[in-house]
């Protein structure tokens, strides 16, 4: 029975992937991609990656889907021109052969995987008690492979700087996007008033629960960012000006605290990002709490895009 369900999910996933690639226009492709992301999170559950499933549904399908959907609206006029650039039959045949070739090579690799599979699970299980957290994923993200997480946080900030720097000179320091204006008595505005308190509680719960259960700062940050986006979408709050000092401080606080904890480790534990014995859990909590504002701001601001109007309208 389990195998049948997996087979159906996999076939649906492949069908949706083909759909997003061959769909008639970009809007249909993006809608297909959002459904694809949600289905993909079911696949992650099948692979026993609950944390990955949460992040896939929230970021892979949700935020990326919303971002692409927003772009589709602004790119409407350019689609007809692109259609005339469709490659000829030769290129399409070549692409087909190349894609099939890559797929076949990958399939052969998957079928030739070593038995038994190499794994770091025993080491992780053995060392996990020393970190004081119960969720092995959190242990890996913030203790065993903390350097990856630090660099990731820095990559996010760099991506945001990259997006901001695409602003035309005259709008530098201004607000991204248009000010939204929804009917103040409409359903959307109603949701934007009712949902955020619940979303904030769920988001902070996910951060705290992430120590011992599936969840953590990324999942938490996505929900909090989504709540902020919802409020922006109704025009209840404007998008923040890029020049704002508190905004910039919030964006860099996570990586700065992370580096500070790393340097502290150099002094107390003799290793960059090393935690002194018995102090691992508090250190991890400090990093997670400091990373939260950075992640919320960066995720939401990446969605907002480059500054497009001046602060003074």
């Amino acid at each position, binding site marked *: 029975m389990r*195998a049948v369900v997996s*087979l159906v999910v*996999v076939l649906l996933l*492949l069908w949706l*992937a083909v759909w997003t*690639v061959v769909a008639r226009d*970009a809007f249909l492709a*993006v809608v297909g991609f959002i459904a*694809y992301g949600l289905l993909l999170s079911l*696949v*992650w559950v*099948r*692979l*026993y*990656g609950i*944390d*990955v499933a949460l992040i*896939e549904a929230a*970021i*892979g399908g949700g935020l990326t889907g919303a971002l*692409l959907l927003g772009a*589709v609206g*602004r*790119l409407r006029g350019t689609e007809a*021109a*692109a*259609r*005339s*650039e469709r490659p000829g039959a030769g*290129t399409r045949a070549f*692409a087909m052969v*190349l894609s099939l070739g*890559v*797929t076949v090579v*990958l*399939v052969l690799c*998957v079928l030739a995987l070593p038995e038994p599979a*190499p*794994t*770091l*699970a*025993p080491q*992780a*299980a053995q060392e996990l008690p020393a970190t004081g957290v119960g969720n092995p*994923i959190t242990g*890996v*993200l913030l203790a065993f*492979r903390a350097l*990856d997480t630090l660099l*990731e946080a820095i*990559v*996010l900030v760099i*991506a945001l700087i990259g*997006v901001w720097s*695409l602003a035309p000179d005259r709008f530098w320091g201004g607000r991204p996007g248009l000010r939204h204006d929804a009917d103040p008595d409409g359903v959307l505005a109603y949701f934007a008033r009712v949902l955020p308190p619940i979303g904030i509680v769920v988001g902070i719960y996910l951060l705290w629960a992430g120590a011992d259960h599936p969840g*953590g700062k*990324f999942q938490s940050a996505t929900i909090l960012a989504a709540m902020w986006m919802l409020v922006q979408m109704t025009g209840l709050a404007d998008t923040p000006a890029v020049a704002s000092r508190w905004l910039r401080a919030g964006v860099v606080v996570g990586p700065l605290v992370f580096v500070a904890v790393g340097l502290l480790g150099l002094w107390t534990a003799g290793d960059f990002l090393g935690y002194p014995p018995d102090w691992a859990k508090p250190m991890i909590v400090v990093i997670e709490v400091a990373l939260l504002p950075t992640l919320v701001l*960066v995720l939401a601001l990446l969605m907002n*895009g*480059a500054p497009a109007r001046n602060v003074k309208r």
Partner: protein
Amino acid sequence: MTVETLIALAACALVGIGLYGLIVQPHPLRKVVAFNVMGSGVFVIFGALARRGAAAGMLADPVPQALLITAIVVAFAATAMTVALLLRLIESTGSASLAAEPPSADGEAR
């Protein structure tokens, strides 16, 4: 065949499907979507490897799973950056064309 092998094989096909779309679709936004499909195929193969590494009472190897979380977040950041570049391209040239020569006027009218 185990479930994770089935999923890994399907993921190989996802990489191929995404690659095909990346080459064939002329519109940059369609390329971004196709590239995301391709990337997710790579992620799923990696996730299947994590599941194969189940040991010591864990249902999957947590190290690749943690790296996957990092990867998905970074993929989102890269997508946001690409979309911003694309919107800027249209703002400054009025066209989303990636062709070396801008398309002819009658091509745009169609």
